[in-house]
C-alpha cells in the first residue's frame, strides 16, 4: 500500500537532488569565473536557495505539510513568521555548535555562518516543510522509534546523513595536502551536501527494503 507513497517520495527526492546539481551548474553560466572552490559562498548560497525553493514547492504541491487546523490568513501568517524565526534560530544554533567544534570565533565568521545556513536549509527547512513549526512533533520524530509515516523516516535519514556528512567533512582539514577544498568551510559544506544527496537516495531505498518491518502507528 505504500508503493505509491514511496514512489512519490523517490520522485520528490529526485527533483530536490537535481536542484542541487542545477544550482552547481547554472551559476557557471550566469556568474563570471564561477567555481565551487573559488567562489565558494556563491555556490553555497545558490545550493541553499535552490534546495529551499524546491523543497517548499515540492512539499506544498504534494500537500505533505502538517495538518492545519485553522485556515485563516492570520494563522497562516503567524505560522510563516514562526517558521522564519525557527529557521533563524536553527542557523544560530548550528553556528554555535560549529564554533564549539573549534571554528574561529571572529575571523571567517561569514563562512561559518554560511555553513550554518546551508545545514539549516538541509535539515531544519525540511522539518519545517513536513512537520511545521511544531517542536513537539520534531522531538517525536527525532526520538527513537518516533516516526509515524514514510516522510518522517525519510526526514530522519536525510537529516542524519547531512549532519554526519558535515561531521565527516571536517576530518580532512588538518591534513597537510594543501588542496583547495581543505580551506574552511569548503570540506564541511561539500560533506554536508554529499551527505544530503546520499540521504535523498538512501531514504527511499531503505524504506523500500524495510517496508515489511516498518509499522507506523496511526495517530
Amino acid at each position: 500500500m505504500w508503493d505509491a507513497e514511496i514512489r512519490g517520495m523517490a520522485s520528490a527526492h529526485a527533483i530536490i537532488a537535481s536542484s542541487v546539481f542545477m544550482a552547481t551548474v547554472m551559476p557557471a553560466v550566469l556568474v563570471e569565473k564561477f567555481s565551487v572552490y573559488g567562489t565558494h559562498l556563491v555556490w553555497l548560497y545558490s545550493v541553499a536557495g535552490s534546495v529551499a525553493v524546491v523543497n517548499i514547492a515540492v512539499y506544498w504541491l504534494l500537500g505533505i505539510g502538517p495538518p492545519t487546523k485553522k485556515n485563516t490568513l492570520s494563522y497562516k501568517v503567524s505560522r510563516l513568521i514562526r517558521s522564519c524565526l525557527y529557521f533563524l534560530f536553527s542557523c544560530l544554533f548550528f553556528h554555535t555548535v560549529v564554533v564549539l567544534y573549534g571554528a574561529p570565533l571572529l575571523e571567517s565568521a561569514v563562512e561559518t555562518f554560511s555553513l550554518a545556513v546551508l545545514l539549516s536549509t538541509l535539515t531544519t527547512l525540511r522539518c519545517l516543510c513536513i512537520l511545521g513549526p511544531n517542536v513537539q512533533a520534531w522531538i517525536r520524530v527525532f526520538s527513537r522509534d518516533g516516526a509515524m509515516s514514510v516522510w518522517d523516516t525519510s526526514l530522519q535519514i536525510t537529516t542524519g546523513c547531512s549532519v554526519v556528512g558535515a561531521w565527516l567533512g571536517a576530518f580532512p582539514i588538518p591534513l597537510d595536502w594543501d588542496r583547495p577544498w581543505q580551506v574552511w568551510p569548503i570540506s564541511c559544506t561539500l560533506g554536508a551536501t554529499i551527505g544530503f544527496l546520499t540521504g535523498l537516495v538512501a531514504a527511499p531505498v531503505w524504506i523500500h527494503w524495510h517496508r515489511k518491518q516498518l509499522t507506523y502507528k496511526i495517530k
Partner: protein
Amino acid sequence: MRVSSSVFASLCLVFEICGIALFLRGFFPVPIKSSFSTKNRLSDFPAEPLTGSAPNSTKIPSPLFKKVVIVLIDALREDFVFGPSGNRFMTYTRHVIERGSSHSFVAKARAPTVTMPRIKALTTGSIPGFIDVVMNLNSPALLEDNFIWQAKTAGKKIIFYGDDTWVRLFPKHFMEFDGTTSFFVSDYTEVDNNVTRHLDSTLKRDDWDILILHYLGLDHIGHISGPHSSLVGPKLLEMDDILKKIHASLIARETEGSLPNLLVLCGDHGMSETGSHGGSSEPEINTPLVLISPAFKRKAGWEKPGTLEQVDLAPTLALALGLPISQNSVGRLIPAVFEETSLRDQLRYFHLNGFQLSALLRDSTPDYHKEDGYEQFRVAEKSHGNWMKLYMEGNTSEVLLNMGKKVLKQYLEALKAMSSALSRQLGKYDMYSMIVGMIFIIQVLLLLLLAMPEALSGQARVDLPVASALLSLPFYLLCLLFSSVHVLVCTSAGGSCYFCSLPWALVFSAIVFSSALLCTLVVMATRRLPTASKSPVKTSGSDWALSELDALLLIGTVGHTLSLGASSFVEEEHQTWYFLLNTLCLAVFQDVCRKYFREKRSGNYGADDSPLLPSNKGKEESSSQETSLFSPVAELGVSAGSEKWLALATPLLTLACCRLLRSLNQTGVQWAHLPDLGHWLNSAEHKVVLSLLSVVALILIFILVQRHCSLVSKIALALGLLGVYSYRAAVGNVLFPWQHSGRAVSKGTVEARFVYIFVLGILFTGAKDLLRSLVASTDGRLKSRGLWEVYSGMVLLVALLFRAHNLPTLACCLFVQTIMAQFIWKKLHYDAAQTTIMHYWFGQAFFFFQGNSNNIATVDISVGFVGLESYVEAPAIFLTAFSTYAGPLLWACHLVCYLSSERDRGTVALGHGSYCLALLRSVPAVAYAVLVTALRYHLFIWSVFSPKLLYEAMHTLVTAAVCLFFTFMDHDRSSRP
C-alpha cells in the same frame, strides 16, 4: 588460573611495557659515542708511521690557514648558489666559484634538518641522532668534543655574530658575540642587519682568528613565503655583497710570508618547495659549501660541484687549523683542501683522520675487526710506514711518488668505508628486537581482546588457562622452536642486536613466557569460538550494539587509532580529540534530552510509548527511585526542580569549557603560530589579568576539591593553594596585591617547598585513611574519603606545577569532573565501561588542553626545577612526567575515586574500569608500534612519528601505574566479604 579483571589488566600492561621497552631499544639507534668522555688533545696524536725505526714525529702538521671566516646562511639551498637564482643574484660568489681560487661542493645534511642539530653536526662532525636530541633537552650547552672547543683550547680567538643558538651551545667560548633570536619569524631584515653592523669594525681589527656569522633572514623568508618568493632575490643580493666585502677585506690583509686566510660559505640545511624544513627531501638536505682561499688553485671555469657530507667540514677545518679532530666526528677530510701541500703532509693528514675514525669504530662496534674499512686502514697505515722509510732514506724517485699516491688512495678508500660504516650504524634499525617486542605486545593485546566477555562480565574475573597451556605439548615445541630461531638469528646477525646481547636466562624466560601466552591464546580462542557460533543473536543483540553513544565511543576509539597512520593526524592529534570530545558531549546532551523530555512527554503520549521502549522506561523508573537516594540536594544544595535544568546544561557547559580551553593553548604544527590566550596572558602588560584569573581559578579549585575531604585536609589544601599563589608571585608570574613593584624575582624555592609539605601531608592523610579502611573493616565511607584525599593532594601538586596561565585548565578540569559526575554519570546510569571510555577521552583532550603536543619541544622542562635549587635528576624527571601527563592522570584518578565511591555500582565496577583503561591504552600503543615499523623509512619518521612513539610509551607507563593503583583499591575491596 582465575584472576580478577583489575589484576589481569595490570599484568597485561606491565608485560606490554616490557615489550614496548624492547621495541624502543630496537627502534632508536644508540648514538655513536666514544666511551671516553674526554676530548681529543694534541698530545694524544699518533706518531707518523714509520717501519723499522722508532716512531719519529708526533707533531701535527702546521696549520694551513691563518684566519677563518665562516659565513653560515640559514636555509641556504644548494640551487641558491649553484642554480639559476645563484647566477642571477649571487654574481660575485659565482664569479669566485667559477674563476677564483676556490672549491665548491654540495654538502648533504642529515635529517632532522633543523638548525640546532645541524650546528652540532657542523662543529662536532658527528650526526646527532633523534635520541640524542631528547637526551639533551635539559642541557643546552654542547658538552661533546667539538671544533669550537678545540679552537678555544688552542688559544684561538673566536668572534660570533648571529643566531643565539650558538651562544647557548657554546657558552664562554667566544671572545665577542652578539646573538640574535630567531623568535620573530616575520622579521627578515633587522635580524640580518644586527649581524652585519659589526662586520666593518671586526674586519678592520686583527685580534681574532675565527669569525663566525650566522644569518637567519633567508630562513625567515622561506618560512613566510617559500623559496620562490620575490624576497629571496634581494636577500641573496645582500648576502652576496657581504661575501664580497669579507673576501675583499681578507685579500687586502693577505701579506707575503704569512699563512693565507680562508672564507667558508655554507648553509645549515635547505628548504623545501613550501619553504619549511625538518624533513629529508632533496631540497632540504642539499646545501652549498664554498671554500675560498688564495691557497687554492684558480679555477678555469664552471665545474659541477662534487658531493660530500656536511660533517666533513669539521675534521677538515680542524686539521687545516692544526687542531685535533673532535672525538665523535664521522666526517672525512676534503681532499681538495689539502692537495697543494706536500705528499708527506697529505699522507699525515689522512693518517690522522683515519686514526680518529678507527678509534671511534673500535669504541662503538664490538666486532670492528670484521669491518672492511678497519682492515683497509691497517693496510694503508703499513704501506704508509714503508713509504716513510723510503722517504726518510732520501729516495726521491718517480717510484716513491707513485707509491705515495697509491697509499693516499688506500687511505681515501679506508676513510670512506669507515665513515659509511659509522653512519650506517646510526640509520640501522635493530629489526630483531623490534619484532620480538612487537610480537610480545600483539600477544598481550589479543589476550586482552579475547578476555573481554569475561572481564566485563558480572563477576569481573578472567579465567586464564595457564596450567593447561603449560602442560601441553605445543608449549614445549614452541619453546624449542623459538629458542632455535633465536640462536639462528643471533648467530647470523652478529653483535649489533640488543635482544641477542641479553643474558641467556632472561631471553629464555621471555621465550617461555611468549610461548605460554601463545598457547593460552589458542586455548581461549577455541573456548570462545563455539559459544560465539551458538548464540550469535545473543551477542549482537545485547545492549552493546544499540545505543548511539556506544557506537560513537567505539567508532571514536577505532577511528583515532587508524588516524595515527597519517603524519598530519599525528601532528594535529589534539584536533581529533577535541572533535571527538565535542561529539561525545553532544551525544550525552541528546541522551539527557531524551531522558528528561521523554519523562515530560510520557504524560502526553504515555500509553503509546511505554511498550515500545521497555529498556528506557525501566531505566527511568529506577532512576526516579534513586533520585531520592543520590540526589545532589544533599551534596550540592540543588533543588530537585532545577536539577533537570542543571543536567541539561552540563554538556553545554562542558562544551563551552572545552572551547575556552582550546583557545588557551594553541598546539600542534599547522596552527601553532596563531596567537592564543596563553600568550596574551603571559605578556607583561596583562599581568594583572593573569593574577586575577589565577586567584579565581585557585578559589574555584578549592571549592571543587574540598567537598570530599576531612577538615584537616581542607585547611591544608587552602594553605597549600595560598602557597601556590605566593610561589607564582615569587617567581614573578603574578602580582601580589600589596606589592606592586620593586620585588626581586627569586626561584621561589621556599614557597614551593612549603606547598610540597602540604601535598605530602594530604597524601599521607589519605593513605592513612586507606590503610585504616584496609585493616578495620569499616564501611566504604572511610576508604572513599581516603581516595578523595589522595586525589586532592594530586590536584594541589598539579596546581603548583602548572604555569599560571594553565591554572584555569585545572579549574575547568575539576569543574567538568564535578558536574559530569553529579548530573551525567550518576543520573544517566552509564556503566563502568562507558564511564571509563569517557574519562579516557577527557584525559586525552586535557593532555592537549594544557599545551602539550606530539612534539618533544612542548615538554615543559622548567617544571623539574620547581622547589629545587639545582638540577637533581630523579625528582626533575618525576615532576616533568607528572605535570606533562597531569590531564590523563587526574582523569584516571577521578575515575578510581568516582567508581569506588559509588556504592550502587557494586564491586565489579573497579575491575571493569581498569580493564577498559588497559584495553584503551593498549589498542593505540600496539597499533602505533606496528604502524611505525611499517613506516620506518617514511620521510617524517624522525620528526613526527618517533616523538609520538615516545609519548605513547610514556603514556602506557603512566596508565600502568594507574592500573596498579586500581588493582590495589580493587584488591582490598574484594578481599573483604
